[in-house]
């Protein structure tokens, strides 16, 4: 069992609270991704789990054992750093063996563990090289190898792909996913890239301002975001938001004469200010459909298979619609947009969702 349980974790630097009452369970063998904008506290949370940052309050346990006061080396964790943090003066073998030597592991076992890790990561021919003689991707694999040889209960990854170029990032992402399957390891992974989060995670934890905004499976977050922050953060391009007011039962007024008839959740009352959210991929150019908005095309971005139309609405707001094919519309042309009624999200004034749209 290597479950990580975090209860009511708080972390403050003086009066500045960077982590506020975090509760999180990482199930044994699962891949959990902490995602959020920079400064949201995700790296601090990871470093707290590792023991590199002391915590102000709360509890962290790994594998059922409370580790609050244990130094990192005794927490049975291994960490992969953003800059890889390989020892520049040691060769690949010694980089992987370094921690084991200090743990007084017998020489034969060190040999066996390092060659096992080298085999998994295809580093066997590089064992005698120094880090500076390696490419970025190879250094990344050595950093992962250094984690594997520790046989930890939990792997911690701190933005491990952000130093790689785009093509290598996609490859390595797949490698990490395979590695997770192979090792059946428990992984906590920090990234600011929502694509990495969506593709790798069993469970995503969206963080903002030191709080957990929402926790769930990738597609749950995509289809049922709990609030506007999660809705805007997950998915690319971001979800469109249109400010509206409920003027009559089941009718929204978006201003400038745009009225939408929509069955609204019972929680909404006449007179409430709400925000209507709809992802670009759920908006089409179409003159028919239950929910219609009209506007003028500002810019058409054609990516080939699909494209994005930036449309300004009469009330001054701008929304993005995903288009397929090659619609013959010029800039400034008036268009009608049809919003898929089952993919509309209504957020209350505080930003939390009033109605989860049906799938």
């Amino acid at each position, binding site marked *: 069992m290597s479950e990580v349980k975090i209860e009511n974790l708080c972390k403050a630097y003086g009066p500045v609270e960077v982590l506020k009452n975090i509760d999180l369970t990482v199930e044994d063998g699962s891949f959990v991704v902490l995602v959020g904008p920079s400064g949201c506290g995700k790296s601090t949370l990871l470093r707290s789990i590792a023991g590199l940052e002391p915590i102000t309050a709360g509890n962290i346990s790994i594998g059922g054992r409370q580790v609050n006061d244990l130094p990192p*080396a005794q927490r049975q*964790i291994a960490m992969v*750093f953003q800059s890889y*943090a390989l*020892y520049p003066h040691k060769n690949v073998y010694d980089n992987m063996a370094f921690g084991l030597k200090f743990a007084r592991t017998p020489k034969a076992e060190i040999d066996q563990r390092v060659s096992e890790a080298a085999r998994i990561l295809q580093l066997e021919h590089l064992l005698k090289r120094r880090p500076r003689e390696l490419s970025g991707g190879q250094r990344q694999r050595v950093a992962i190898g250094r984690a594997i040889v520790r046989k930890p209960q939990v792997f911690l990854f701190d933005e491990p792909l952000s130093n790689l170029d785009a093509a290598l990032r996609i490859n390595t992402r797949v490698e990490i996913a395979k590695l997770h399957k192979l090792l059946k390891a428990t992984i906590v992974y920090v990234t600011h890239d929502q694509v990495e989060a969506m593709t790798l995670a069993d469970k995503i934890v969206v963080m903002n301002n030191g709080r957990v905004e929402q926790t769930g499976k990738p597609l749950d977050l995509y289809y049922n975001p709990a609030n506007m922050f999660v809705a805007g953060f997950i998915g690319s391009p971001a979800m469109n938001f249109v400010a509206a007011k409920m003027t009559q039962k089941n009718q929204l007024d978006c201003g400038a004469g745009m009225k939408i008839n929509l069955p609204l959740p019972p929680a909404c009352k006449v007179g409430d200010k709400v925000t209507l959210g709809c992802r670009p991929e759920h908006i089409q150019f179409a003159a028919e459909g239950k929910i219609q908005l009209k506007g003028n095309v500002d810019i058409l971005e054609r990516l080939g298979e699909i494209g994005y139309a930036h449309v300004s609405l009469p009330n001054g707001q701008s929304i993005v619609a995903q288009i397929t094919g090659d619609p013959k519309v010029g800039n400034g042309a008036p268009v009608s947009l049809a919003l898929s009624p089952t993919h509309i999200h209504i957020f209350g004034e505080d930003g939390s969702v009033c109605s989860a749209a049906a799938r």
Partner: protein
Amino acid sequence: MATGSDAGLMGMSRASYLRLLGFFLAPAVIIYSVFSIYPLLATIFSSLYLRQIDGTYVFNGLGNFVTLLTDTTWSVSFWNAMKNNFVFFLIHMGVQNPIGIALAALLSLPQLKFRAAYRTLIFMPTMLSVVIIGFTWQLILSPLWGISKMLLQAVGMGAFFAPLLGQESTALITVSLISVWQFVGIPMILIYTALLAIPDELADAATVDGLTQFQTFFFVKLPLVIPAIGLVSVLTFVNNFNAFDLIYAMKGALAGPNFSSDIMGTLFYRTFFGNQLQLGDASMGSTIATMMFLIILLGVMVYLFVIQRRIQRYSF
């Protein structure tokens, strides 16, 4: 770059290209020639002549060097100064640089408070004049009214007091340690800067690998600042074999008692300029100066061609 005979830089004629070259090179060439290259050559040249009784100079080949190294009138002083200078250097290498490294390590501890204050205080003596340092320490160590004697007596250790600057066995070591005290800030700052360049994540990785803070310093950070330590060592060597001022300020040109604190710099000073009954001898003085130059040249060459080539430099 001018290629062929006609093409200059960006279509310039060859003559104006050369004028431009001259314009940029001239200041450095002139200053180095006048203040560095000419004096050096003149010194070496002068060391090849012998001073006659009547004050004239005749060419003597390498005769002065033979005299300096073998004729006991000169060689006893020369080898004594040479030996003392090596002791002076070894005390700096053995005391100043390890303490400098240790202070740098302490300064870079993340939980240290008042970092800037310590840094300034430790560096302060380096900025003071050597004359002030020498005078202050002479007062501190004075057997008549020195505070060191009173302090030792106050804690009941008066019996350990000795006139450290006045004994042949202790004078050189004492002066060396005072110099160490004055200049320990330089290795500290250079190595501290090198330690700051090591990314924090490397120390974090070592922590996760189970190393204590001390082990992290010793096995991870120290190997990475070896280039800075090499630089500090060669600077120490050059400074020590050019040293003169502290000994002169504290012990005078005679570097007493009985030449026990005499180093190359003071020997050169007495020989070249003369002192008390000893007449100044420019050619013999130049011979000593040339020897000093050769010793330093040899040391720096050993560093450049043997040591530095084996040092690995790391980029992070």
